[in-house]
């Protein structure tokens, strides 16, 4: 078996989470989710359950023609099944912070901004939180700034919200009622104790904890031969780093 990169394992894990979706959209700066969605699409291309993938930063894989508001309008109507959000910080109640650390507005460290999260997090049924860095500085007890809240009271329209959180160390599911994360899978390179130590919030442990699944050789071949050249078109820096260096 050829050497498999960490990023490829995460791409493969994310791809598994998309199995019942009809339409996945990929936002700004999301090469790993984008690769995962294209992989899922390719693997399902000869089945009855086709997957639509909309990659906003691509010309060919952006299915929208009505300008950049169409993503938000389509999402609000329930036309997108899965979307990915990240965060400078993510906390134990799934609040996400894309704005910065310190006291707002004069922050210690300013990051880019909230993008579309303050609507997307409410209306897309399956939000997958993705943050590669899994440390107490990214997964915190409480975020410094809420770009979008993890949960909402009943008088707020909210068909959507967080379902999963995936990092380079683990995969968690989110329980809306109990307002907490539960660990589902772990990267075999780390122990549960290491994951607990590198997580700033408490999460529910799992008697049936599984390891990240190694992608099959067939999947790796698809990823490298068919998906990588597509990714090179719209995330060139990422694709070059992983596949074309």
């Amino acid at each position, binding site marked *: 078996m050829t050497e498999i990169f960490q990023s490829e394992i995460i791409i493969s894990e994310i791809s598994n989470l998309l199995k019942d979706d009809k339409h996945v959209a990929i936002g700004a700066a999301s090469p790993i989710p984008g690769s995962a969605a294209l992989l899922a699409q390719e693997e399902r291309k000869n089945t009855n359950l086709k997957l639509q993938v909309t990659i906003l930063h691509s010309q060919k894989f952006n299915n929208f023609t009505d300008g950049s508001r169409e993503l*938000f309008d389509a999402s609000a109507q329930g036309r997108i099944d899965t979307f990915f959000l990240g965060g400078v910080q993510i906390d134990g109640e799934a609040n996400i912070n894309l704005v910065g650390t310190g006291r707002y*507005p004069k922050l210690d460290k300013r990051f880019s901004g909230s993008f579309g999260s303050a609507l997307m997090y409410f209306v897309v049924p399956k939000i997958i939180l993705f943050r590669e860095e899994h440390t107490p500085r990214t997964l915190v007890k409480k975020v410094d700034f809420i770009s979008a809240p993890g949960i909402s009271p009943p008088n707020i329209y909210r068909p959507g919200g967080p379902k999963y959180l995936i990092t380079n160390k683990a995969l968690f599911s989110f329980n809306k009622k109990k307002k907490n994360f539960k660990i589902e899978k772990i990267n075999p390179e780390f122990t549960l104790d290491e994951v607990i130590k590198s997580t700033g919030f408490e999460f529910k442990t799992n008697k049936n904890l599984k390891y990240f699944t190694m992608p099959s050789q067939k999947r790796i071949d698809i990823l490298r031969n068919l998906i990588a050249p597509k990714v090179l078109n719209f995330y060139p820096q990422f694709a070059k780093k992983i596949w074309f260096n």
Partner: protein
Amino acid sequence: MVNFTQITVKDIAKEVKDNCLLGIPADYSGVPMSVTIEIIKNKTKGLRLYCLPLTTIQGDMLIGSGCVNEIETAAVTLGEYGQAPRFQDAIENSKINIKDSTCPALHAQLQATEKSVPFMPLRGILGSDLYKNRNDWSVIDNPMNNSNTNDEKIVILPAVQLDILIFHASKADINGNVQIGRRRELATLAHASKKVYVTVEEIVNEDFFDSELKAAATLPSLYIDGISLAKNGAWPCGLTDYYDIDTNEMSKYAKAAKYQETFDEYMKDFISQNNYSNI
């Protein structure tokens, strides 16, 4: 021969007055870099940037050059080239005011102006610190009995009219209509702006309204106050169907912009190079 008066990039930059509310297109919808450099050369001050819905090198350069007083945006980022360093510095040291927003809100505020209604409702947002820090936003009870959510609370956003919009596009026709393709957010911006100026790669000897297909991808001249030719006018950003983003230049900028001193040197070089023809 064209049936409109062509102006220059310098003419357009002169229309950007101190303290005006300037519309900023996203990195994918035609960044008017040639005009941006002229605005910086003019030492324009107090600009208020309204990004639809984000900005990259354009906003970062204007901020680093001291032209900006306030920014309303969903993000400032250099994308694959990292964070926007001059923006970060300006926020961390309170040099500019920020109205942190979210993409659909930036669209909705302009859509209110398109329809000439005073506000637009938008779902989401509640429970965020964005809402807490925006005293121009408000919340109402849904006055219509048409929601499955009982006693639904919903955010309302004010209509925003821009003073001026500038963007770069591929082509203008002989009658001053501009091809925007499917970048319809440029139409939203234009409809909600008092003045609209466009730089283009080329002016073609046809009328886009002779073809239904081309007309559908056109911003009509009735919304446009002036057009200038500017070859490579979006560089180092990309322009769909014309050129890709210049990765070397973006990496160079991302590195130089880390510190004010190196940014200033970079800008001095950039300006002296005269990168754009037809100025």
